């Protein structure tokens, strides 16, 4: 395989990515691109980033052998990359630290963020508190209802949470509203985008800040099993935890790469959130990529039991990896994810995020057909404390 070195200078991963925003934001993106290029070449920037990850986040996160679950499935051994053990409880903080350090370099004192599950909002509010910045988080009013513990966490951390009432009132609408804020306050404000999507340089930048996941695994797996895993798997919402795990493995030829989208109520209908599995390319939120859209090019409302995967687009690098066949993308539905959620709780004593439960569900389905000496490495992207109201609600219990 050729040396993999994307995106190109204008932010394209093959046919995907790019910059599709209104003119007012072009200069801000240019400035961000230039400053990130300087930061990227500055060893002091990465030294501080790594220091923060070690002492504030608690990295490296361990890789854990889910022995009882693997035993119960009777096939491949399942290993979990424990991003749930990070400070704030998910992978999102790897990215918000990187972007907040960049915001500080640029002299921006106000940060904004969009959030779906609330994990990115919490991670943004956290770093804003840590670095003394004002923080405003946009969140769809639908998501505010289903992720109320995270809303309160953001408020405790000093952030302002703005409910978004437009469109489907979920993550995509929160992103629209964050963009509108940015366009209005472009001089004072840094937009901390929460996933590996959006206009260039965000997909590249978020990937670079999440790559630490895969880089650690590449060292940890040989220590644990003497080699790299046979499969790496992650859930894909916008794609940040997945690209963080996948990217360092792209040029490791024998490692199979699997991204799992939210199948919602099933791919045969429209109530899902699986653009790579069932969508078509288009332009939304500043980049070209696979989208859930109707024949007229209107963005469809998505559905997933997990708010963090309830997004109609997916980052451009995943679109490219799908097209060139280096990664496979598939979907698991709500019920499968919920089953994996409960199995992980009971067999391993770990309450996983509903998002991560999609990756777990794929592993649980694939493992029995694989040999006992084979290894699936799952990115356990976050912990499920935020989801207990949703889970209880599904069982008819009100907490």
């Amino acid at each position, binding site marked *: 395989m050729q040396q993999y070195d994307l995106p190109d200078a204008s932010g394209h991963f093959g046919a995907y990515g790019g910059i599709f925003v209104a*003119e007012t934001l*072009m*200069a801000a993106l240019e400035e961000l691109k230039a400053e990130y290029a300087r930061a990227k070449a500055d060893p002091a920037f990465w030294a501080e980033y790594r220091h923060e990850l070690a002492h504030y986040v608690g990295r490296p996160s361990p890789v854990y052998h889910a022995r009882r679950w693997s035993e119960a499935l009777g096939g491949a051994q399942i290993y979990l990359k424990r991003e749930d053990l990070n400070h704030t409880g998910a992978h999102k903080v790897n990215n918000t630290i990187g972007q907040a350090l960049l915001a500080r370099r640029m002299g921006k004192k106000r940060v904004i963020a969009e959030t779906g599950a609330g994990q990115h909002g919490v991670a943004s509010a956290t770093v804003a508190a840590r670095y003394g910045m004002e923080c405003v988080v946009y969140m769809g009013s639908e998501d505010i209802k289903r992720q109320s513990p995270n809303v309160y966490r953001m408020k405790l951390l000093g952030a302002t949470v703005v409910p978004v009432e437009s469109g489907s009132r979920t993550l995509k609408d929160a992103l629209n509203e964050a963009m509108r804020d940015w366009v209005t306050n*472009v001089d004072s404000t840094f937009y901390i985008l929460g996933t590996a999507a959006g206009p260039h340089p965000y997909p590249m930048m978020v990937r670079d800040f999440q790559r630490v996941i895969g880089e650690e695994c590449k060292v940890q797996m040989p220590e644990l099993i003497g080699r790299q895993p046979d499969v790496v798997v992650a859930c894909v919402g916008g794609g940040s935890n997945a690209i963080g795990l996948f990217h360092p493995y792209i040029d490791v030829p024998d490692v199979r790469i699997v991204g799992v989208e939210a199948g919602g109520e099933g791919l045969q209908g429209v109530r899902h959130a699986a653009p790579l599995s069932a969508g078509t390319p288009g332009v939304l939120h500043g980049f070209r990529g696979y989208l859930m859209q109707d*024949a007229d*090019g209107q963005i469809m409302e998505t559905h997933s039991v997990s708010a963090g995967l309830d997004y109609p687009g997916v980052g451009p690098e995943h679109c490219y990896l799908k097209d060139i066949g280096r990664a496979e993308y598939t979907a698991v539905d709500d019920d499968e994810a919920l089953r994996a959620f409960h199995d992980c709780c009971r067999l391993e004593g770990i309450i996983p995020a509903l998002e991560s439960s999609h990756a777990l569900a794929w592993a649980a389905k694939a493992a029995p057909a694989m040999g006992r000496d084979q290894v699936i490495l799952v990115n356990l992207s976050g912990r499920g404390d935020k989801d207990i109201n949703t889970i209880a609600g599904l069982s008819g219990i009100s907490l």
Partner: protein
Amino acid sequence: MSRIAECFNRLAGHKALIPFITAGDPNPKLTVELMHGLVDGGADIIELGVPFSDPMADGPVIQRASERALKHHVSLAQVLDMVATFRLENTYTPVVLMGYLNPVCAMGFQRFAERAAACGVDGVLTVDCPPEEADELTGALVAAGLDPIFLVAPTTPPDRVARIGQLARGYVYYVSLKGVTGAGHLDIAEVTGKIAALRESITVPIGVGFGIRDAETARALSGTADAIVVGSRLVQEIEAAEPQAAKQRLARLVAELKSAIR
């Protein structure tokens, strides 16, 4: 000569008024009527918004207009049909479609450009398609005889202004403020200064819009700009009116704005 160039020629230095409404708002049956109402009031060019589910650059007023139109499932194809119907009675008022890239992608650039030209569209402004990404679309538009309209913002640096000046046809749309459509913090002196500076590298007429809400502001800006674009204020009028009264109320408001900038 394109219908837009002809229009500016005809005005011979007088200022153009460019009202914006969203196609399909408040319902698709009314749009062509409302377009004629705009012309009755004195519209020189019509900007017709193509509804989109995720209007990232628009404020709440135009977002709501998009939502009202999408309740009726108004598609880009239907918007083109509306323009064709409008052209049965009006062959001189230029119509510029303003919207987002994705519905155009979904139709296909080539097919869109050909159908739009056949329906009597004159210019196309895709808000989220900066010149860097516009080659393919612009090529298709120009080949079909349509004018690609570009935005220039207060944040656009001089070298980009020059580049946009080279690509622009019809007119350039100067965004009068940092913000979304309908925002209310426009600084007249600053905008006037900017527009004067743009003249150095832009040869087509310069329209100004985003946040022009009253005749007084329109008059002040028409000192330097060639055209005044008014959107949210008109959409609010539609929002507030009974459907059967909307045409008249629009015409009255447009007339008031037009007389302010003459």
